[in-house]
């Protein structure tokens, strides 16, 4: 166990700032959800740029509004959404490693592009894992800095692990241009067709992959509802069964819901299939009203892209498996 110290004080918590590691694994059979970053892509890059291994706890800041004051000199990286952040009186640089001095303030405003920003600090935020993870799931009262699933609150002192002084020089200072998505552009979401896809009517399948879908305001870490032409499935519901990340389920009203990190572990609506992990990440940055399209994808390409992404950001790939903790 390395030494920890107070890294930040929360001067204003804003609506929703959560501590997230890679997620809670090996406990899904107990009804415990996955948690972890809604945008795995931006979260992975935040850790990479801060010199942290895969799975290191990061702040997920949704909508903005968070104000932090550094309690010591820190190295940080902020990725993901542009939440009109400022470092003292300067715009907060995104997608790059920066140093901030003791007493300096990082202030997030309102979402300009995307919804969720990720703030990683070199060494990583420090909290006691619950069921093998610090991933903060408010609904389940698990994880976070207090272990009870509490979002950040005004006045919180955020502990960090003291980083090793030497940043490996193989780690880039900023993310390559092509890794910084334009979250305002219409999103094209890769979807791997699932077993019930053939049970949708032909018209509905055409609509699913050709219509423009709007992100509804019923969207959170559990799932994102899409509105558009109603989809009809010949089987209205199934016996409840496990639901994996990115599953796109279609309830009887025909409006699909893409299920994200805090989804319930089992459910019984027919599914079109699964968004790829990177597509789920992209969807998590879409604001209500934004339009998205679903594109049928093959598993081979999706797997290649996923592995490529992990290889790019995981400083030491074994960090990932060590973040897992099967309870059995």
């Amino acid at each position, binding site marked *: 166990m390395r030494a920890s110290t107070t890294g930040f004080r929360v001067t204003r918590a804003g609506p929703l700032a959560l501590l997230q590691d890679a997620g809670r694994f090996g406990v899904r*059979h107990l009804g*415990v959800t996955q948690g972890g970053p809604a945008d795995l892509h931006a979260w992975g890059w935040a850790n990479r740029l801060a010199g942290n291994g895969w799975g290191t706890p990061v702040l997920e800041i949704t909508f903005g509004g968070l104000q932090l004051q550094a309690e010591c000199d820190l190295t940080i990286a902020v990725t993901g959404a542009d939440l009109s952040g400022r470092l003292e009186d300067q715009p907060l640089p995104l997608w790059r490693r920066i140093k901030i001095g003791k007493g300096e303030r990082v202030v997030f405003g309102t979402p300009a592009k995307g919804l969720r920003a990720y703030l990683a600090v070199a060494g990583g935020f420090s909290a006691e894992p619950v*069921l093998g993870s610090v991933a903060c799931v408010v609904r389940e009262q*698990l994880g976070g800095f207090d272990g009870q699933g509490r979002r950040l609150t005004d006045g919180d002192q955020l502990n960090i692990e003291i980083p090793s002084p030497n940043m490996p020089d193989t780690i880039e200072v900023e993310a390559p241009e092509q890794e910084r998505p334009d979250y305002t552009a219409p999103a094209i979401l890769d979807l791997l067709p*699932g*077993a*019930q896809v053939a049970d949708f009517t032909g018209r509905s399948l055409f609509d699913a992959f050709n219509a423009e879908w709007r992100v509804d305001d019923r969207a959170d870490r559990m799932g994102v509802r899409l509105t558009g032409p109603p989809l009809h499935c010949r089987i209205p519901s199934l016996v409840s069964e496990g639901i994996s990340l990115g599953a796109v389920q279609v309830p009887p009203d025909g409006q699909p819901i893409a299920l994200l990190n805090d989804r319930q572990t089992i459910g019984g609506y027919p599914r079109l299939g699964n968004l790829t992990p990177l597509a789920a990440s992209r969807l998590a940055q879409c604001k209500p009203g934004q339009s998205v399209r679903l594109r049928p994808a093959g598993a081979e390409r999706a797997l290649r892209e996923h592995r490529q992404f992990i290889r790019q950001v995981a400083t030491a790939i074994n960090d990932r*498996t060590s973040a897992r903790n099967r309870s059995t």
Partner: protein
Amino acid sequence: MSHSDLPRLEPAGIDGWMVRLFGTIEENNLLWLTALTHDCEAAFGEALVDLVPSYTTLLVIFDPLQISPWQARERLVDILARLVPDDIGGEGELHKLATWYNSSVGPDLERVAELSDMTVDAIIDTHSYQEYRVFALGFSPGFAFMGLLDDSLICPRLETPRPKVPAGSVAIAGQQTAAYPAVTPGGWNLIGRTAARLFDRNRDGFSLLKVGDRVRFVAVDQHTFESEGGDPTPITPAREETRS
């Protein structure tokens, strides 16, 4: 969806397969599902991320960095070819849940009695007489879906779910029964409350109940309920809650 080609492997993303074993809910499904769970743990080892058993299926989530979906599929095909159900004798652990059946903590007892055309006492006797099996966990940590209820107790969910169901509430809906591990919203009929701690982060295994376990609800009086740690605070009427 036809059931003639079961068991069947269905794609569930780049890191998952849904193993569909059965088309309908039967108690004997559990013997196959628990056997399949154990076999997957042995065959996938470190590459296994999660296993989510439910009534008729097992969702297998693996680490896509360690194995590809196609390798995972091969392993599952192998397992299925050799799968033998667990022994009936080796069935799950039996839990006896001390339950105080009373309208103050089970405000739907009378509604259920009315719908079933039975007395409240008969409802309690029928519910506590039988042994139930845990078919699935979900909805919230440690929430166990149990069945199957005696036909006489089958009743629909509430039209409007309660925003806050107290922890320990024992409930029925359709052919199923459950106990709420924590305060959550809920649409099932509440008929009593158990003193058992259903989910405890400090307990080995965390959840009291696991898929395949057996459960008896044992009717106790208020005194016993409280002495076993039960909270007798009456449930707030739904009207009061929706106003707040």
